[in-house]
């Protein structure tokens, strides 16, 4: 395991993208920053631009309006980067299956741009903060 991967695991910079969510998952993501769950002790930090990010925390069902922006953000993140589909909506359009304004689950949208993108799924509606942390840890271990 070369040093690049080791360092990537120890310091994950996260950028949050909402593609049409009921913002339950967004609030759970913010809960990760609050004192009770504080993810900074794992080196996970929220950053201000996709350029700095290693992981994209994508929530929401990927409405047609948001799909293009998500692809643009993915192109702008510096590789290697992991796409985390947070919540049932991002994993597979959840309860909004078949709605006319939905452009499909997040991984389909991202895979259109880069077929071999690394995508990790954290199911749950909303996934508990503990579930999100364990999801991130498992995904990093698997890279």
């Amino acid at each position, binding site marked *: 395991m070369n040093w*690049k991967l080791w*360092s990537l695991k120890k*310091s994950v910079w996260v950028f949050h993208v909402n593609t049409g969510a009921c913002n339950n998952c967004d609030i759970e993501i913010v809960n990760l920053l609050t004192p009770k769950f*504080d993810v900074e*002790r794992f*080196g996970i930090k*929220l950053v*201000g631009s996709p350029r700095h990010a290693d992981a994209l925390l994508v929530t929401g069902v990927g409405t047609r309006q948001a799909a293009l922006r998500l692809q643009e953000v993915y192109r702008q993140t510096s*590789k*290697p980067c992991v796409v985390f589909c947070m919540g049932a909506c991002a994993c597979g359009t959840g309860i909004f299956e078949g709605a006319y304004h939905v452009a499909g689950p997040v991984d389909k949208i991202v895979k259109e741009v880069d077929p071999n993108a690394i995508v990790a799924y954290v199911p749950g509606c909303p996934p508990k903060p503990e579930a999100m942390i364990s999801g991130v840890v498992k995904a990093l271990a698997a890279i």
Partner: protein
Amino acid sequence: MMEVLTNLFWILIFPGFVFTLAVGLLASWLVRKVSALVQYRVGPPVYQPAVDVMKLMGKEILIPEEAHRAVFVAAPLVGLSGVLLLAAMLWLAGAGVAFVGDVIVAIYLMVLPSLALILGSSSSGSPHASVGAAREMKLVMGYELPLILAFIVAVVKTAGVLEPAEQLSLVAIAQHTPVASISGALAFIVALLCVQAKLGFVPFDIAESETEVASGVMIEYSGALLAVWKLMQTLMLVALPLFLVVVFLGGVGTSGWALGGGIGKYVIVLVLVILIKNTNPRVRIDQAMRFFWCYCGPLLVAAVILAMLGNYYGLTWL
């Protein structure tokens, strides 16, 4: 030949790049840890800043099309070399090796990182970065004047005691503690706030790329270039407080007690910086400018006059 090798060793390894970097990483970890503890949070582990930089080295570098490639890539390196030279000079001053007029050189080197930041972000072509660059320029104009005035006070204070030849050499100034007088203390406080602004900490982090908000000077940088910026910031976290220690608080000796005292002073300055960072909300750009020009400016002019009177009448406490 041996001469060159030892010099190289001095600059690159011991007191130079590697050692300062280690101290810088430790200091930036301390800053993050204290801010986290204030908010009931646990805060990052010790090696966190080091790992952040290592990870960034391994990342892919994205350069936007509209950016001017050469300037975009060169800016961080320019900034880094500036701070590196400054750090090396300060350590050497501590060890007695110095040349006349190095205070002025030091002040110039200190401006280099901010100029590099402005250059880099405006060359990156993103509207947000140019907004950030404009703010950084205003901030630089804001705190440069008071900073230079503060150093003039220090030079004037020590001039009374030194022969003309040595007046502008860091080593000489390091022997004395100008802060022990009214004008010196005033100058020290203002210089500390200017260093706070130069480091880009709250309350003057207006242009800095905030983790929590999107725009900022470094928005377009990624991968190794961003790592260089972060390196520059960690080095600045060492160099600037060290500069204050050398100029105002009587420098860092190389043996026994003097070394211990020097490190103690450095830690005190660092704690002061952290305290200011955690107790103030962010200040608006025009307020920062007004603060530096309308409050610090006249205050320091008075301090310079006080220092001169002190020399003329020989009252060192003035």
